[in-house]
């Protein structure tokens, strides 16, 4: 674990793992947008932090100068010498398509997208609804629950396990690995343990699927041909790992943040109960206001962007959450307006790396909130509750005690 001093100057020395940033990044972004819209730090490595909608989306579209080969917000193994102790397979291509540029990005993304199309996602609704119902059965009569750990955390991991064709019984193990890789990336030992666990598990699963193919995503990746040739094993492994990693922390955080919002804003909670037809618009607004995901890009060649001298190898943190709070792009961005009609939010990114699982995430968020509100329409934060938040690459509540 890297222990760093508290931040005193956010413009020149920011740290996305600073407790102040994790607890309340919003006021930091607001200050930066006014004073230094692209901040910089040399902590961990030279990195830039844009906070304006216009800059974040422009950088997302400039794939020539800003590569996706290195997308970790907390620089880890990808930025160091290969760790000699790493006891897992070599991921030569990372986790395509998210950690790739065209042309690899283009064809690997086309393999994944149909699995997350509207039509396919509609088919996952009954499973998701059933899962939410069972989780609610477990605590609805008790008068209290941890909305994050007992509910939000339990949903996306099981849906993605179904799509991948892996056992939902291992959900807690999957969640542990994904948290090690994303939330505790600053702890080299933990990060490595998570990556080893996850990759070695999928190596075994791919072997099994090769012998006994099913109708799941893993089996299709193993049997599909691209330009007449099977897909390289390392690429299949990277894509499988990506589907799990990207399908767990992210949506769980969005569900958790939304429930936290409703627990702390009774007017919004009552309105959503009274006007269920508002749900699709409300979902977009909650995604805007509490966008969980920040990705990174790597600067490919020295470039001056918005007056900032970016050097080849620098990182740029794609601050989609801050873009979605930019007053130049949204009226009163600090206010959650469940009926916000104009909402070009970029919670799922912008440009060619738009989240491939966005239809799935939206569906899970909507079903999770619908089922919760149908069963528990009246709830609030437990008195004295200490809500804890994860930050860095993915922001969302990890402990969120509520009473009803």
């Amino acid at each position, binding site marked *: 674990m890297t222990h760093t001093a508290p931040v005193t100057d956010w413009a020149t020395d920011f740290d996305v793992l600073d407790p102040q940033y994790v607890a309340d990044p919003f006021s930091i972004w607001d200050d930066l947008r006014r004073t230094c819209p692209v901040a910089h730090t040399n902590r961990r490595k030279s990195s830039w932090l844009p906070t304006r909608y216009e800059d974040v989306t422009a950088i997302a579209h400039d794939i020539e100068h800003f590569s996706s080969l290195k997308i970790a917000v907390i620089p880890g193994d990808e930025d160091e010498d290969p760790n000699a102790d790493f006891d897992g397979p070599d991921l030569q291509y990372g986790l395509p398509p998210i950690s790739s540029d065209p042309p690899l990005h283009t064809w690997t993304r086309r393999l994944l997208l149909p699995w997350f199309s509207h*039509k396919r996602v509609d088919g996952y609704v009954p499973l998701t609804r059933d899962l939410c119902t069972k989780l609610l059965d477990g605590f609805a009569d008790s008068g209290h629950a941890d909305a994050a750990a007992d509910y939000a955390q339990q949903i996306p991991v099981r849906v993605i396990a179904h799509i991948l064709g892996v056992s939902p019984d291992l959900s807690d193990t999957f969640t542990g690995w994904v948290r090690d890789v994303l939330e505790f990336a600053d702890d080299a030992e933990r990060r490595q343990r998570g990556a080893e666990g996850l990759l070695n598990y999928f190596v075994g699963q791919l072997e099994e699927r090769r012998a006994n193919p099913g109708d799941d995503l893993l089996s299709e990746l193993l049997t599909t041909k691209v330009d007449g040739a099977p897909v390289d094993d390392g690429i299949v492994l990277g894509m499988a790992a990506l589907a799990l990693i990207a399908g767990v922390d992210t949506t769980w955080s969005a569900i958790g943040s939304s429930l936290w919002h409703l627990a702390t804003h009774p007017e919004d909670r009552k309105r959503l109960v009274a006007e269920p037809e508002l749900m699709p618009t409300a979902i977009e607004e909650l995604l805007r206001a509490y966008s969980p995901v920040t990705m990174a890009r790597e600067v490919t060649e020295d470039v001056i962007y918005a007056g900032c001298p970016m050097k080849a190898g620098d990182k740029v943190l794609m601050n989609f959450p801050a873009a979605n709070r930019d007053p130049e792009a949204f009226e009163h961005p600090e206010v959650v307006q469940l009926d916000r009609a104009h909402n070009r939010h970029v919670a799922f990114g912008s440009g*060619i790396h738009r989240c491939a699982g966005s239809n799935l995430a939206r569906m899970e968020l909507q079903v999770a909130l619908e089922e919760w509100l149908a069963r528990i329409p009246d709830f609030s934060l437990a008195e004295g509750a200490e809500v804890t938040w994860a930050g860095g690459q993915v922001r969302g509540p990890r402990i969120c005690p509520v009473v009803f």
Partner: protein
Amino acid sequence: MKLRVDPDKCQGHARCYGLAPEIFDVDDYGLASVIVDEVPPELEEKARLAVANCPEYAIEIISG
């Protein structure tokens, strides 16, 4: 009113389909298309909402 989705700009956010499935469809790869020649007057407000919510500015009103 006539609409067009620019296939070079569309990245598959599917906001248009979510807001106005009577006007837009989205294929297996996320690419949106307009499925009506002319937007009926009663759907024009929905069409304008779709235009105003596309994160890629990919929907154009070409007439009306």
